[in-house]
């Protein structure tokens, strides 16, 4: 079982990111589970969502306490030192940020890759929705799911020009990461 | 459409009246003309949807009103009935006085249940008209929200409120429909109080604000007018509302044989104006020509007895009630001074005798 935790702000599509990742796992033939830690949050408030993927049915319904990977959709959330709480040894986080990855990595003592997802999203789909970029980067790093699964999941959700932009964006984003660089994590 | 008013007949030739007749009742017929196609609904007036043998009190205004409504509405109807006298005296397992499909759920949900019944008819492509019945307690007070919701959603339901101006089923407690200064068991008259302190809620205005196709007030003292209003409402696809002034001998403390007379005087003094509204605007009123003093209405009823005591407050409250009646008369033009009175007969001409008509009781 691989566990993910997604941190974002209300309105950034953190829950959509979780559903998208779960859908991608489903498209790849894996079992999946995605859910938000729902609060009464309004736009802009911190939001957390969780994803599990496995090759057998997932029974556990607890929140993800020991994630393999983190996705941080808004780098202002890095002010919260506890953001990496429970991250498994050898885990990693993908951050939507223009900051320096090495510095973030050193600060939190874990693997981290910062990508300017907002800028790319604005360029490709005209809106600062970082989901697909971050998921593409993470899946490229881990190789957990093929990018085609992510694309199939996007195709279930969007169509026409929006889908086209998203698919191109996934390919562009994948080039920002080294293929398989975090692959060994699951064995950790 | 050609003018249905036949020439040379006894029909009045007032075009406005003819138009209203065509709209509100059955079209007038020329002598020798082909008989009109009688639809089941046209043939309904003699239908007895509510049978005799029920357990209503002697002289019950509500029982009479419901019978008149059912005659004009049935038999292709189904009824959603709120908790109250009407529900209690007509049913009581295993006997029922209803000859139409009838359901009682709760005190405050007759409108919502009717909404569901109507939705079911729509889903099944049936035309059966849904009626919702409630007393003033369930209409003005506890079921007010569900009524407003039903009207707002434009359900094809005729809602009839049998207004006897208090919670009679539980033993005469005040409702928001109880008239000002009336004594009830929860607004008794005493050294410190002259009965109900507040005014009767102006429900029709609130109903009018929903801009439904048709809303009207009727009275058991004017059965033809009442039935015309029911028939008119039955012909409308959409929410319609009828409030019927229905005296309760027990709660109003008048003799059981005076029900019609009391109801008539309520109209004649202007306290219960018989008005019709379409899409929220007044389209018709029953003129009363020579309004009676409110005192004539009050004196028949024990609930206003304290207003006849040697007490300056009693005088004041009588004046207050007279002012309310005067306000209605002025607002609705009830004396029929306006240019085109819709009903040339008027309340004063609709008289059928009774114990007080022939000089006393």
């Amino acid at each position: 079982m691989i566990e993910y935790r997604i941190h974002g702000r209300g309105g950034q599509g953190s829950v959509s990111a979780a559903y998208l990742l779960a859908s991608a796992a489903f498209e790849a033939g894996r079992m999946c589970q995605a859910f938000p830690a729902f609060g009464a949050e309004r736009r802009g408030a911190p939001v957390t969502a969780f994803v599990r993927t496995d090759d057998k049915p997932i029974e556990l319904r607890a929140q993800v306490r020991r994630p393999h990977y983190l996705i941080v959709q808004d780098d202002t959330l890095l002010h919260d030192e506890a953001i990496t709480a429970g991250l498994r040894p050898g885990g990693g986080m993908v951050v939507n940020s223009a900051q320096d990855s090495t510095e973030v990595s050193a600060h939190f003592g874990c693997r981290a890759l910062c990508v300017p997802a907002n800028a790319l999203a604005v360029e490709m789909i005209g809106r600062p929705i970082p989901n697909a970029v971050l998921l593409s980067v993470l899946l490229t790093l881990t190789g957990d799911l093929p990018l085609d699964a992510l694309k199939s999941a996007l195709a279930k959700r969007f169509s026409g020009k929006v889908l086209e932009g998203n698919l191109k964006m996934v390919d562009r984003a994948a080039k920002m990461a080294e293929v398989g660089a975090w692959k060994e994590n699951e064995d950790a | 459409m050609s003018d249905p008013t036949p020439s040379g007949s006894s029909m009045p030739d007032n075009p406005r009246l003819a138009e209203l007749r065509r709209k509100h009742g059955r079209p007038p017929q020329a002598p020798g003309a082909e008989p009109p196609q009688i639809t089941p609904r046209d043939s309904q007036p003699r239908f007895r949807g509510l049978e005799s043998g029920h357990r209503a009190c002697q002289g019950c205004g509500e029982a009479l009103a419901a019978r008149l409504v059912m005659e004009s509405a049935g038999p292709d109807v189904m009824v959603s009935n709120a908790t109250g006298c009407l529900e209690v005296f007509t049913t009581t397992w295993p006997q029922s006085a209803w000859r139409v499909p009838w359901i009682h759920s709760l005190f405050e949900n007759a409108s919502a249940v009717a909404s569901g019944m109507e939705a079911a008819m729509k889903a099944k492509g049936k035309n059966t008209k849904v009626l919702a019945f409630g007393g003033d307690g369930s209409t003005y007070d506890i079921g007010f929200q569900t009524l407003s919701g039903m009207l707002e959603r434009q359900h094809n339901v005729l809602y009839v409120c049998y207004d006897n101006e208090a919670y009679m089923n539980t033993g005469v407690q005040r409702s928001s429909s109880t008239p000002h200064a009336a004594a009830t068991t929860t607004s008794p008259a005493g050294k410190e109080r002259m009965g109900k302190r507040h005014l009767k809620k102006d429900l029709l205005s609130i109903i009018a604000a929903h801009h439904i196709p048709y809303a009207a007030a009727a009275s058991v003292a004017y059965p033809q007018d009442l039935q015309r209003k029911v028939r008119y409402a039955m012909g409308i696809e959409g929410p319609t509302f009828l409030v019927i002034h229905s005296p309760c001998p027990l709660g109003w403390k008048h003799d059981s044989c005076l029900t019609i007379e009391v109801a008539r005087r309520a109209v004649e003094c202007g306290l219960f104006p018989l008005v019709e509204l379409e899409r929220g605007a007044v389209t018709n009123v029953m003129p009363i020509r020579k309004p009676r003093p409110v005192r004539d209405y009050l004196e028949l009823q024990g609930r206003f007895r304290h207003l006849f005591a040697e007490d300056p407050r009693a005088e004041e409250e009588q004046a207050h009630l007279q002012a309310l009646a005067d306000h209605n008369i002025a607002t609705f033009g009830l004396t029929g001074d306006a240019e085109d009175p819709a009903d040339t007969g008027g309340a004063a001409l609709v008289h059928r005798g009774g114990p007080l008509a022939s000089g006393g009781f």
Partner: protein
Amino acid sequence: MREALEGSQAIARAVTLCKPDVVAAYPITPQTHIVENLSELVAEGDLHTEFVSVESEFSAASVVLGAAAAGARAYTASASQGVLLMAEVLFNIAGLRIPLVMTVANRAVSGPLSIWNDHADSMAVRDSGWIQLHCVSNQEAVDTTIQAFRIAQETDLPVMVCMDGFILTHVMEPIDLPEQSEVDAWLPPFVFDRALDPSDPKSLGMMVTPDYFPEIRHAHHAAMEKALPVIEATDRDWEASFGRACGGLLTVEGDAGARVGILAMGSTVGTLRAGMAEPGAAPARLITLRAFRPFPAKALRDAARGLDHLIVIDRAISPGAGGVVGLEVAAALAGHPDMPRLHNHALGLGGRDIPETIYADLIAAIEDTDAPGFSVFDADLSKLAPEDR
């Protein structure tokens, strides 16, 4: 077809497969997504129903009551305060023996205000006379929803399908949705013998004097008892057609020889299963209670026989008495030989997350012989002022 769906979306699709004539609902967290998805299906022309957007839950329940009484298949959904606002109507629906289906997206009841999951809402109306079925997963919620329409019309009883708010309603997971043709073949068209019909007028909801009232209550109780085999048979029939079951009245899994049992309802069962499957976990017999009303007392005794300890998990409490399920289990086992000692714990009240370690913690707590018969297991009493502990 298998799809990755959010629980609420799956429920809306399942309801659509049952072709309800009338749907009435009022939005309330966490049921909202169900209503929104149904509205969307109507707007897209995928669901042909009279969708009545009411002004309150009270009216939602009243509208479906009226619709079903007039012979329509009807559905509603609610949660928490909404269920309580409906309470008067829910008792009336059941008392009039009107077949209806309602989803309860279980949520805590105010105050203090909590939008998160527990079972206080459906437990508050447990005596309303509705059938109450609890779902472990969204797949069970989908399958139970369709089964509920059949159970309702076979028994002339309304059915509440209880699914944990957020924990199930907002979870995306793979769902196997039956084909329309399969549901059409499995679920008979709606029939209600006592439906309002001008060609055969009947009076429903009449006043009943003491001469008949006890008999009518007895008949209702008897109908609930008779619903027990119907619930079981319906699930068996479902399994025969679709190859998966929802757990009939209750299911027993785990180590048959274990001396310790755990009984739970709803999504908690999944987390307990995960804990039980951990390497080195202590053996236990896991009892999943699906039917809370009618209460399967006999099946429960059979399931509990031979255990030394039975841990009963509650997600609702009756303050001053204990866990609601715990009390019912105690009543069912009382006076029967070979029944286990009960340990009743409330867990996850108001949405407190139930961690994967809970299984081991619950079993370890059996050793605590000083523990009271009932506890709010995951309450941290240090958060309370001393006088409130």
